[in-house]
């Protein structure tokens, strides 16, 4: 498998990339016909953004879809004032990791005290539970912030990639210290690197305290290494108690992060590594740990925990005594490995093109990866310049995740998230509680993982609520998007055009018209038609 990949990569040089680019820029998106240009705009807004807002497909088509994409590829040049203003309402963005750690400890104490209250059956003193509730609210804010950014940001492609990398480098919010470490993982590790070089992003995640804790690398120490126990920690303790303190110190190698680094973050499960490679990667990364909370909980390299012996990974020799540098060397090597290029290119194509992406776009992405040394911007550009991205087979080929469904519905109806935290809760109820995927695989990408009977019914209910103005967390002015029409048929045409971008099937049209038959009140008709359109099968696809 690896041999064929390398072979393929060798045959594609820079000239080939150029040829592919020249061949592909011209066709579908720049077609002269308005319909084709609009269809391409819809495809771009569905995959490179969180779904079109009212009228947006026409605007993108008029400006030229490739122009819009280039614009989106330089998010730093796109003003995002409305979102910036909105972000100011989020307390979580003003708290640093020490603040959060303090609150975490307070919340824990609070909870423990509450348990004591329960067991002694006394009345809980006033204020009990407030610290825990405050921490829960901050957690909910973190989730809501992700939804609000996806809905409101003008830097749509950037927010799509933030979501992609957040998921690729998944951290489980509810695992112990990650309750206070995760926000910085998003703000300082993922977001600054989402459209940069993969290598920088990979190194940032390897140093991310949230990741070091989540995948236990902070506990991984060279076998036989013992931490220096500060005398004050054991002063006045009995020998037995000293034993217990020593026993609680981390001991031995933990392979958890090393395995996921190779299997999920870089090479991929078929990336050609062995169990020995995993052990050696774990040895190289011993010592990569975290400062205590209260002292910044920042990344720290612990010399005492580091394995100073020689290691060999994928045939590469790492000579003894290189300390933290060998970890950086390893991560660079992994970021540039052909298996990584292929694994990541395919995963990006699965997100942007199709669950089972055609070879053409994957090959183009790999070639761009190689030529640009893993510049995510160049890789995305290469993908959207392949015919695969624009092919009829790729249109509406993907089922929306719950987050994509909620965000695109809010955007399509021109709704504005209110100051409550309920939109994120809705995403959770639909099956994707943000940052709460416990498995390091992150959320799945394929339709089979999102489509089940209960989930679809929940989406229908959410659609009906949104259409009736009852969606918790977002207020929509549907009349502004869908003004009254002379008759139901015209009105359904409008729904098709504005909400479904023309994808409404004859069957859906007939069903909606049939439902509207006896409805005379225009507001009621609007609610019914919008509920059925957004809860119906066309809107589940993108």
């Amino acid at each position: 498998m690896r041999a064929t990949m390398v072979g393929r990569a060798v045959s594609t040089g820079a000239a080939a990339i150029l040829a592919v680019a020249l061949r592909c820029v011209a066709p579908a998106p720049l077609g002269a016909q308005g319909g084709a240009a609009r269809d391409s705009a819809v495809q771009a807004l569905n995959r490179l953004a969180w779904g079109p807002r009212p009228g947006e497909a026409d605007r993108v088509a008029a400006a030229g879809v490739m122009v819009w994409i280039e614009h989106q590829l330089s998010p730093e040049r796109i003003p995002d004032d409305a979102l910036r203003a909105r972000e100011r309402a989020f307390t979580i963005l003003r708290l640093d990791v020490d603040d959060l750690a303090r609150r975490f400890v307070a919340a824990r104490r609070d909870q423990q005290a509450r348990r004591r209250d329960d067991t002694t059956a006394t009345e809980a003193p006033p204020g009990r539970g407030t610290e825990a509730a405050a921490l829960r609210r901050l957690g909910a804010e973190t989730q809501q912030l992700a939804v609000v950014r996806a809905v409101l940001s003008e830097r749509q492609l950037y927010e799509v990639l933030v979501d992609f990398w957040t998921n690729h480098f998944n951290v489980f919010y509810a695992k112990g210290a990650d309750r206070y470490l995760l926000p910085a993982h998003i703000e300082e590790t993922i977001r600054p690197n989402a459209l940069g070089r993969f290598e920088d992003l990979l190194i940032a995640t390897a140093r991310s305290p949230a990741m070091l804790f989540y995948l236990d690398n902070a506990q991984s120490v060279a076998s036989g290494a013992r931490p220096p126990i500060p005398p004050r920690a054991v002063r006045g303790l009995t020998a037995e108690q000293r034993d217990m303190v020593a026993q609680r110190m981390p001991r031995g190698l933990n392979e958890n992060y090393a395995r996921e680094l190779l299997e999920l973050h870089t090479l991929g499960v078929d990336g050609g590594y062995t169990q020995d490679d995993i052990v050696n990667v774990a040895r190289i990364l011993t010592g990569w740990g975290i400062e205590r909370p209260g002292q910044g909980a920042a990344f720290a390299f612990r010399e005492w925990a580091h394995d100073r012996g020689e290691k060999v990974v994928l045939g590469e020799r790492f000579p003894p005594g290189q300390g933290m540098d060998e970890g950086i060397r390893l991560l660079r090597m992994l970021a540039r490995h052909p298996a990584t290029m292929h694994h990541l290119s395919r995963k990006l194509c699965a997100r942007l093109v199709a669950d089972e992406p055609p070879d053409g776009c994957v090959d183009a992405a790999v070639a761009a990866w190689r030529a640009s040394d893993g510049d995510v911007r160049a890789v995305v550009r290469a993908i959207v310049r392949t015919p695969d991205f624009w092919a009829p087979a790729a249109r509406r080929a993907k089922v929306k995740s719950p987050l994509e469904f909620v965000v695109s519905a809010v955007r399509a109806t021109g709704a504005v998230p209110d100051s409550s935290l309920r939109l994120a809760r809705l995403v959770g109820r639909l099956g994707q509680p943000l940052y709460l995927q416990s498995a390091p695989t992150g959320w799945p990408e394929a339709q089979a993982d999102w489509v089940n009977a209960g989930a679809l019914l929940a989406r229908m209910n959410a659609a009906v609520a949104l259409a009736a103005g009852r969606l918790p967390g977002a207020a929509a002015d549907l009349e502004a998007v869908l003004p009254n029409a002379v008759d139901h048929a015209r009105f359904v045409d409008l729904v098709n055009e504005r909400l479904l971008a023309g994808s409404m099937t004859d069957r859906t049209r007939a069903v909606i018209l049939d439902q509207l038959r006896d409805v005379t009140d225009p507001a009621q008709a609007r609610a019914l038609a919008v509920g059925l359109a957004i809860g119906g099968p066309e809107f589940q696809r993108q």
Partner: protein
Amino acid sequence: MKSGGIGLFSLGLDPLFLARAVYGAVGPRPLAAASEHPILVCLFQRGAVDGLSMVVPHGDATYYRERPRIAVPRSEVIDLDGHFGLHPRLAPLKPLWDAGALAVVHAVGSPDSTRSHFDAQDYMETGTPGVKATADGWANRYCTSAREHDATPFRAVAFGPQLPRLLAGSAPSLAIDDLQAFGLQVRQPAARDKLTAAFEALYEGAATGLLAPSAAEGFAAIEMLKRTDPARYAPADGAEYPAGRLGRSLLQVAQIIKAGVGLEIAFADVTGWDTHVNQGGSQGSLAARLDELGRALAAFNRDLGERMRNVVVLTMSEFGRTVRENGNAGTDHGHATAMLVLGGPVRGGKVLGRWPGLDPAARFEGRDLAVTTDFRDLFGELLVRHLGAPDLRPVFPGREADPARFPGVLGA
């Protein structure tokens, strides 16, 4: 395999869809021998229950030595066999033990050494300890591999807002948070029926992929539920479920079983077992949780009555807790725990599994109760001998199915 997948994809179909369509194509139909289906009910005690105080080794002096503040006093333990006894708050289960319908498997757990809740829960639900990349659950793989079952949306149902990993995968499974609210939430019945019919018509028209068959499963479920009228359910024989989530879940399981809609595997969570602080002995926080568990299980057993002859309830938990109490009069994350198996088919009245003892030399990593029964052997026994699984290989890949290792909860 790979090329086949790509070929199908170009037609807008993928192999998984084809597998799903087989289930989804069949609408609701009365299940002739519904009452004869064997049923497995799984309760997950999330947070790691202290098996040593749930089923107390009161004959082992080490238990009392290591837990000066939180041991359940020997005088209060409900003795089972002279060595083990139930926590006093599990008294409602004693009649089941006496009737031979309750078995305990002790020192059961995972071969993986993790003490992380989330890793250990994942491993117990995927059935592949140590392998994190497994996306689907063992119960779902069982449903996929054993297709000799009536097509029904209710074959595998989790009671809660989300589908647990245990039931996730390519075979259809439902997550039902509230049986009465399952379906479209429109207050007026006539309007609700009209809207339901409209959505059903919309999704029948979805040509490719999983949308149409999945929606069909949902609408079939709604239709079947309508006939059972969950709003009017009254437990039989004066059974009283305790207030709270567990009681509500088990009541709904009983409803679905009695509705005869083809349930085979039910799942519910029971939380609150992570007793790091002030765990208590015969009274206290653990006792309160066990009280609810005992009463809920007894109510379920009473409510189902005769129907229990073909129903097995299994409790599971990701790991056990330390033998020695900690500085906060609680217990920390340990290794092996105890699981309860009850129901008509159970050959109970026995504490099964090899008891490794609490001697420090016999403990796992010198501190925790060692695992002598791999949880897959207990789950596997129930799948084979109760549900009739033809082959455990796809269900627990990497674990050779060997009936000699089954703990024997259903007899040999």
